[in-house]
């Protein structure tokens, strides 16, 4: 039946847009290639007539050999199902694409990112500025012909390492002894300092008040990047009228560590430990998403036992992420550190499991293409058992008792930072933020990956869309995760944990692939393009924390300044993933 649906969909799209929409017929590719002129109409049809109301990912690919830039969109139905992929191809010299922000507001930050890193102009974007780098930075770094100051070779492994390796520090080969490079003819004396801030301040909204109202001055306040409640190096520029928030703009990039550029220099396997450092609070989920994306291209499937281990690890990750998030969220609410201490205690016990199985508390590097790196030892299995059947359920109940009906949590959470369902979908919010707004969308259910279709669990959903509901959702999800782990522990079979021989060089067939998992922060997607060589041609991360921030301004407007940190805490961002 589903094939039929796809067929009719295709017929409809192709008949409605003759000439300008063609199926993508490159080998290993999928979806449609849309003419730039027809993009807006095409997107409108998708959203209004076909039900693809959720634009998950927008990214660009630089096809240097063909002289083309391609913008890739992944759209979903919030009722579940496979993605619809569509692409726009534009010449590399002058890449201009119409902006989709008017149809899918969730494209806002992602288009800005594509402009910043690839230099693709989005016509009609309301606020097309750099987002991760600063205004004035030379070049668009993700372009294939752009080289970083420490550039050594196009791809790893570098030839200088073996067989004639002599240790050196890259800075010793740089004329400045630092990781810097300047364009020819540049004169620092003539440089007008960074204009990013001025642009931000200019762009902020203000309100005009009637004359007879109390005359108050509207001021601009910077929160961050060094701020105890921004969960890292994140900055928010806020216009305040008295204590009320008039407008807010998130500023990021303070932890932009060039994950994607490095990822395209790396071999396929080398990216695995790098994914740990994306959302460093939930490394196993990151591993999972990347492994899925590459396994799709390779066409391998992990053995049964490995599938179960993956699920157990991914759910343990979710638990430790959520309890940490709850602890930190209480911090933001003013219950300084005591709830965090209790939460971190449970997290430590889960980290012990990771350390014993994978070797590191945080940077697990545990998944391999076609399996996992190590089996779970007997004694650790027992500990997971103890945790899942005894300690964690008890402790979650305890936390629930302490916190859920606490005066502070209720008073500061209820009715604050409301995001209605239709707006949550429009802004491409994901994970707990989306589900707290009444949209029961969970990738584990909507498009099951791994063996999630075998488990009995509920998709947590709440309907108020406020801060308090986002807190409750996390509590609910921890309980569901425990349920999944309990089932997995009962069902896990003996057997191998790896399909085929472990290998470190992978010949990945050419093509594209999008692997997505329900990470603790939301839908985590990896878009990879292979050209048949040992390294990914394009490696893009659809980071849920990053895209969830698109809705931040919407949520905060009209609230008091003290609510900002609470609202931000309820989104639960990790800067490693926001900035990558």
């Amino acid at each position: 039946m589903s094939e039929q649906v796809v067929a009719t969909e295709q017929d409809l799209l192709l008949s409605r847009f003759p000439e300008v929409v063609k199926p993508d017929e490159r080998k290993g590719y999928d979806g449609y290639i849309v003419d730039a002129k027809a993009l807006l109409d095409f997107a409108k049809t998708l959203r209004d007539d076909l039900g693809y109301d959720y634009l998950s990912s927008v990214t660009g690919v630089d096809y240097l050999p063909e002289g083309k830039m391609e913008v890739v969109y992944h759209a979903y139905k919030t009722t579940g199902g496979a993605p619809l992929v569509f692409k726009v191809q534009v010449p590399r010299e002058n890449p201009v694409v119409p902006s989709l922000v008017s149809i899918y507001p969730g494209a806002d930050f992602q288009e800005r990112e594509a402009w910043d890193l690839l230099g693709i102009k989005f016509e009609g974007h309301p606020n097309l500025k750099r987002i991760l780098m600063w205004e004035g930075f030379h070049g668009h770094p993700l372009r294939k012909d752009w080289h970083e100051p420490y550039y050594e070779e196009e791809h790893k492994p570098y030839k200088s390492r073996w067989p004639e390796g002599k240790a050196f520090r890259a800075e010793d080969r740089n004329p400045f002894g630092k990781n810097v490079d300047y364009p020819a003819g540049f004169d620092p004396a003539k440089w007008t300092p960074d204009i990013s801030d001025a642009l931000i301040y200019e762009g902020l909204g203000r309100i005009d008040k009637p004359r007879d109202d109390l005359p108050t001055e509207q001021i601009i306040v910077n929160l961050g990047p060094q701020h105890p409640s921004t969960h890292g190096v994140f900055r928010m520029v806020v216009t305040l009228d008295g204590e009320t928030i008039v407008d807010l703009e998130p500023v990021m990039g303070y932890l932009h560590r060039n994950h994607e550029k490095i990822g395209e220099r790396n071999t396929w396997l080398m990216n695995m430990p790098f994914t740990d450092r994306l959302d460093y609070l939930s490394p196993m989920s990151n591993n999972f998403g990347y492994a899925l994306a590459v396994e799709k291209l390779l066409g391998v499937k992990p053995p049964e036992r490995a599938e179960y281990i993956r699920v157990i690890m991914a759910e343990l990750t979710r638990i430790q992420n959520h309890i940490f998030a709850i602890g930190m969220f209480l911090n933001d609410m003013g219950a300084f550190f005591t709830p965090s201490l209790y939460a971190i205690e449970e997290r430590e016990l889960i980290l012990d499991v990771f350390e014993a199985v994978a070797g590191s508390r945080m940077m697990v590097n545990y998944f391999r293409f076609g399996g996992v790196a190590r089996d779970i030892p007997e004694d650790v299995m027992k500990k997971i058992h103890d945790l899942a059947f005894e300690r964690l359920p008890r402790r979650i109940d305890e936390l629930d008792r302490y916190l859920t009906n606490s005066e502070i949590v209720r008073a500061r959470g209820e009715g604050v930072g409301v995001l209605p369902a239709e707006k949550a979908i429009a802004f491409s919010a994901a994970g707990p933020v989306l589900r707290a707004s009444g949209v029961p969308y969970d990738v584990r259910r909507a498009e099951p990956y791994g063996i999630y279709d075998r488990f009995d669990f509920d998709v947590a959903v709440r309907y108020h869309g406020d801060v308090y509901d986002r807190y409750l959702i996390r509590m609910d999800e921890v309980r569901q995760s425990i349920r999944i782990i309990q089932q997995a522990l009962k069902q896990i079979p003996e057997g191998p944990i790896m399909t085929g021989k472990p290998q470190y060089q992978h010949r990945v067939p050419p093509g594209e692939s999008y692997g997505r998992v329900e990470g603790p922060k939301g839908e985590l997607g990896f878009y990879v393009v292979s050209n048949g060589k040992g390294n990914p041609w394009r490696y893009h991360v659809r980071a849920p924390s990053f895209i969830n921030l698109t809705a931040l301004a919407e949520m905060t407007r009209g609230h008091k300044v003290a609510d900002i940190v609470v609202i931000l805490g309820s989104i639960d961002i990790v800067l490693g993933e926001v900035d990558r």
Partner: protein
Amino acid sequence: MSTDDLNSPEYKDKIPEELQGTVAITTLDRIYNWGRRNSLWPMMFGLACCAIEMICTAAARFDFARFGMEVMRSSPRQADVMIVAGTVTKKMLPQVVRLYNQMADPKYVVAMGACASGGGPFKEGYNVVSGIDKYLPVDVYIPGCPPTPQALIYGLMKLQQKVDKQSIKEVYSNAGKEIPIPVLGPDIMDPRDYEKIREYTLKKAEAEAQAATAAESAQSA
């Protein structure tokens, strides 16, 4: 005179016999350092992954309150240790240097993890500062990616040992010196390097022009 000499009988015996049970002698350096060493207040300043391990070090299991470090201050004015926990990016660097300048003397910097020490796995990245020691004086480097909480505590103990060995004069000799704040240009620019940058870009422009004319003449020929 080293502080250890004070324990020798030569000095001890100079204390009158009836006071030996109640009087202890020390040097000013020593008692001053004892106080400083046991009340190092880190700044609540996390950059990346290592910051999570730093939070875990502050939490119940490892608890660096046992070293007098539990008061993590969010304001640099009240802190005397900056634990650079994570990758320093070029965009963040001006803020990091400014925070350092705002800290009260005597101040210390701990580079926690591979990234803060030398760029770590992200070293080759275009927005990454390969080692904070290019801009700030670092006292202790802690390798690891990330260092476990125990490794961090070991590093902080190393810092305490360092504090112990300093003399008051040494401590305040560098007081009040500010580090020029880097500027975001086409790439990060250290104000002290302006001359060098100009030379470099001029040379680069000349080389490019030469290459262009060479290519032109080759084409016309």
